[in-house]
């Protein structure tokens, strides 16, 4: 019975195994990025970037139809442009990063919507905008795995300057020039992982598998290594749980994954050992010292 519900779908159907491999790759790359987005108070930046990707994907679609490489490439270019421009403007002028990003992503979104509507309605495009993790082909799966690998490698390279830039950016500027490149590389990784996510979850929900696991991790760990591990694990659990839920019910796969993550998030909100609500309601007697 339990076997039928939890394991059999993956034994019996290849598309479920592909989907599982896909979400595991997404979790490995996206969740650590989400942790840094959260710690840098950039959680909503992910959301903004997801919108910024739209015109690139739409242009890719215009040129070559429903070709994932073209759409990925277009999305990357649009996302990079917005991320780099916003990062540059905030570094050079007094405009803060959130404000410059908001300006650029709105422009990008408007361009994207214009392109989509000029082409007329198209169900295929909608399909890609909302993603379909149950229809990953070999190529797409390889792209996702490749992007996740790149993400982990680049994160390993920029980890130290990225952490210092978060805690004490002034100090980093006095000892090294690595701050700005690390920051830009990080923004690039955000874009790569969003594009990665839109194959599976769509542009609108892609950011969910980055931010929700990061939020979950915050409730269980006080140090950044612990947070990254917990976020990856909870993203994988969400992915697996979402696939099972979607297989057994009529819930579409993308939202199912995010809904499972949301359940974990709410559970953590109440029972988390670090500032969880129950902890705060029943803190226990105060300590000696």
């Amino acid at each position, binding site marked *: 019975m339990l076997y039928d519900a939890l394991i059999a779908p993956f034994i019996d159907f290849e598309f479920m195994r592909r989907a599982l491999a896909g979400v595991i790759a997404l979790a490995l790359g996206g969740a650590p990025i989400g942790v840094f987005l959260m710690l840098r108070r950039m959680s909503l930046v992910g959301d903004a970037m997801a919108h910024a990707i739209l015109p690139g994907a739409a242009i890719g679609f215009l040129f070559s139809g429903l070709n994932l490489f073209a759409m990925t490439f277009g999305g990357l270019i649009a996302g990079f442009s917005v991320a780099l421009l916003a990062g540059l403007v905030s570094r050079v002028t007094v405009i803060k990063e959130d404000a410059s990003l908001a300006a650029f992503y709105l422009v990008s979104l408007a361009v994207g919507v214009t392109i989509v509507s000029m082409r007329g309605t198209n169900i295929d495009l909608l399909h890609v905008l909302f993603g379909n993790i149950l229809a990953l082909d070999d190529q797409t799966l390889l792209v996702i795995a490749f992007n996740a690998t790149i993400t982990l490698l680049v994160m390993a390279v920029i980890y130290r300057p990225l952490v210092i830039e978060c805690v*004490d950016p002034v100090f980093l500027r*006095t000892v090294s020039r690595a701050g700005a490149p690390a920051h830009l590389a990080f923004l690039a990784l955000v874009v790569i992982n969003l594009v990665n996510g839109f194959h599976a979850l769509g542009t609108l929900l892609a950011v969910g598998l980055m931010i929700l696991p990061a939020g979950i991790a915050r409730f269980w760990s006080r140090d950044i290594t612990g947070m990254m591990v917990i976020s990856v694990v909870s993203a994988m659990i969400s992915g697996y749980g979402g696939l099972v839920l979607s297989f057994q019910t009529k819930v579409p796969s993308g939202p199912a994954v995010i809904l499972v993550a949301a359940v974990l998030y709410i559970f953590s909100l109440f029972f988390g050992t670090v500032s969880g609500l129950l902890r705060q309601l029943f803190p226990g007697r105060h300590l000696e010292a």
Partner: protein
Amino acid sequence: MTARLTFRDITLGYDRHPAVHHLSGEVTQGTLLAVVGPNGAGKSTLFRGIVGILKPLAGQIGYGGITQRDIAYLPQSVDIDRSFPISVFDFVGTGLWRSTGMFGGLGRKARDQIAQALAAVGLNGFENRSIGTLSGGQMQRMLFARVLLQDADVIVLYEPFNAIDAKTTLDLIALVQRWHGEGRTVLAALHDMEMVRAHFPETLLLARGAVAWGPTPDVLTLDNLAEARRMCEAFDDTAGACAADHERSQAA
């Protein structure tokens, strides 16, 4: 004595408005210099210029055989995101950046150095605490520990004793004296004139330009302090281009 820092007619500021205006002078090696002046006198701007965070609008800063990277800077603690989950040990360890760089690991020797630095500022046993749990004084001690690890020739301290209790101030002043004894060049922006008189042999009284610069008793006179307050006019949105620069560009 060799000059460690040479200000050649530097002007530093934001958006063309000078905060430090035509400052010239030399800081020789081994100097223990207090930089004092009213709020808005340009102390933090000058320090940001020295450590290379801010480019001069005009003029040059000479570094007498060292580079900006050889300067340790103690920032205002407001610049630090204290909610970030990093331990005291790791934070102080970033002071070893020059030897570890982006990838170098922390060997046994480095770990000992970090432990010694923490002990020197009285933070033994705080290694695994996250920086968000520190009090203001402990935070300041931690920042001093990092400067200690940076082992720099020139040390620039921005208001290091603000909102710090007497005990902590004494401990940290002792550290400053130790650096001075080791022949390092130390600059500190300060507000407490009594402390400057007691511990700092040389003073720069700044009010956008130098009002006075020399031995502390000669600098901290009532006349000079009044002059400094007078010179700190407000940032004027309608100010014209600086005449001194204009003359120079005509001459050139």
